[in-house]
């Protein structure tokens, strides 16, 4: 038993050090070798942490393009956020209730946070598991370092929700990795801090799932976010530098002016304009340094 523990610890330490080394290796400019992947098996909860839940069948493992085999037709969004691999394990209790645990390794902590924010709903309950955790009716997402962990219950019964929390905590205890939230999250204005949810964006697919402004990738941001609050949403798109943001702002303004989907375009100042979409939403678009900010409100008047 001790030997097994030692071996497991050694494998884990090797995996961890390889991961940290790879993170370090990403810092300098130039050609960077692809980082090695973590051994996700080591993060799967096992006895005695399970307390009434038992693994059912062997874990499934999918890497890279093979995600398509697991999430047939829904893999693109994971790819946009930087998917590397996933391990999936089913658990059962004595009453044959099931919980599925998925551990996704994403490109880095920002990607894991991003996918977490995308998958989490606005109505969930926050828990102190991992670096952020949200329990919805029958499922829980949390992230830790470059990992996104999803637990899905058979139903929303108290037993399943209890089991989800137990397995989540058991998995969390096995993951010593940490990471930082994307810095862009810190630029969310104070008045939007009470947003029901903030979704970090890595590409146009994520954006279009929240709001499709144009039928093509007009914004071409490096990273972005959407903060949802009542009947309004704040979008912030960040670019490589202020010059790129300014150039893009100019293109965006032209696109709004040309599009039959938007009306009543008026410039308020040099670096912002307003428009109205076909649904009657008011949009204010502002250039702010290396970011473009869009406030979309269903009400007729935007707060100044």
């Amino acid at each position, binding site marked *: 038993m001790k030997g097994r523990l030692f071996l497991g610890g050694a494998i884990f330490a090797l995996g961890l050090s390889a991961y940290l080394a790879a993170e370090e290796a990403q810092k300098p400019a130039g050609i960077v070798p692809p980082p090695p992947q973590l051994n996700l098996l080591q993060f799967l909860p096992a006895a005695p942490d399970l307390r009434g839940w038992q693994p059912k069948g062997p874990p499934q493992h999918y890497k890279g*393009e093979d995600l*398509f085999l697991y*999430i*047939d*037709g*829904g*893999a*693109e*969004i994971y*790819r*946009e956020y930087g998917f590397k691999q996933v391990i999936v394990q089913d658990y*059962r209790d004595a009453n*044959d209730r*099931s919980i*599925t645990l998925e551990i996704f390794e994403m490109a880095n902590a920002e990607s894991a946070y991003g996918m977490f924010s995308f*998958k989490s*709903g606005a*109505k969930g309950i926050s828990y102190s598991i991992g670096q952020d955790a949200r329990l*919805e*009716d*029958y*499922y829980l997402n949390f992230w830790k370092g470059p990992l996104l962990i*999803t637990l*899905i219950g*058979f*139903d*929303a*019964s*108290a037993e399943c929700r209890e089991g989800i929390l137990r397995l989540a905590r058991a998995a969390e205890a096995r993951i010593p990795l940490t990471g930082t939230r994307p810095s862009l999250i810190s630029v969310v204005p104070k008045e939007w801090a009470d947003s029901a949810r903030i979704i970090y964006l890595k*590409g*146009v*697919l994520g954006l*279009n*799932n929240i709001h499709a402004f*144009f*039928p*093509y*990738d007009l914004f071409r941001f490096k990273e972005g976010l959407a903060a949802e609050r009542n009947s309004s949403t704040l979008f912030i798109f960040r670019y490589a530098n202020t010059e790129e943001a300014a150039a893009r702002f100019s293109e965006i303004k032209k696109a709004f002016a040309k599009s039959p989907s938007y009306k009543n375009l008026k410039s308020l100042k040099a670096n912002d304009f307003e428009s109205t979409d076909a649904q009657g939403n008011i949009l204010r678009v502002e250039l702010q340094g290396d970011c473009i900010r869009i406030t979309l409100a269903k009400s007729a008047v935007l707060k100044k």
Partner: protein
Amino acid sequence: MASKFGRREFISKSAKIGVSAVLGKRLISGLADSPLAALAKDGADIAVITGTDYAAMTAKAVELLGGIGRFVPKNARVVLLPNVQSKNPGTFTKPEILRAVIKMCKNAGAKEIACLSLLTQQHWDGTGLAQVVQEEGIVLKLISSEAANFRTVPIAGGSVLTEAKITNELYNYDLFINMPITKDHAGNKFTGTMKNLMGLNSRDHNRANFHKPNWTTDPAAIEHLDKCIADLNTAVKPTLNIVDATEIIRTNGPMGPGELIKPLKVIAGVDRVAIDTTCASILGLKGEELAQIKKAYEKKLGEIDLTKVKILEVKV
């Protein structure tokens, strides 16, 4: 309080089902040309049934279309295509609906009833649909990915596809009942009757042709997927569509887990464009704003203007 998510028939012991991966033997000219596909001309174009007894709702929907006998003649060989994508709530066709359709086909005198699937036994076990197949004594045919199991079906006038790769097994049957669950899709926003037909097309072909290499996620890639779906639907035409809109996810589709909503509806009809437009509205979407529906309408696969469609809505 516990909620059940429509798995009331689910019994966790995996059903052991006779499974056969079969090569097509009995070649027919193609279901698109089947005279049975044109039977439903009277009655409602679309039946929308609301309630909580999913089996009764399914039966009522078919009744409003003129009854199962209009679609399934005596001695017909019937193939069913429910959605078994994952066992997450709101992502797969409910077992009660599958069971109701099987029973109706039996009552109509069907000679053979089978479910087709390009997915695995694990998918069927996890959703509880395997249990239904076993208990009803019908056949589940899991089609493995070998190229020999699929036939090339030319797509004349395809926007992007010139051919589809349809499972041979489909052509061993007289008629095909399409049984999707409608739900969100993180790529093209919507899954309905037309998207479900990807479940008949070779997964390798889907992967290589419907989705762009390296999972490109720009709008052009998504529009390409929608065009492929519309093209595919010109190659295969279901005799009947019965859609599960009872408990469905409206976020994180198609696999979930996502926000579960409960429209508690079963929708049936022949016109895929009209049905998908109806289903889209349940998800808060407009058919004309969804490329797959719009493209299919442009290909004259059905009616997008629901004011021109006879829709009967009933509560049971």
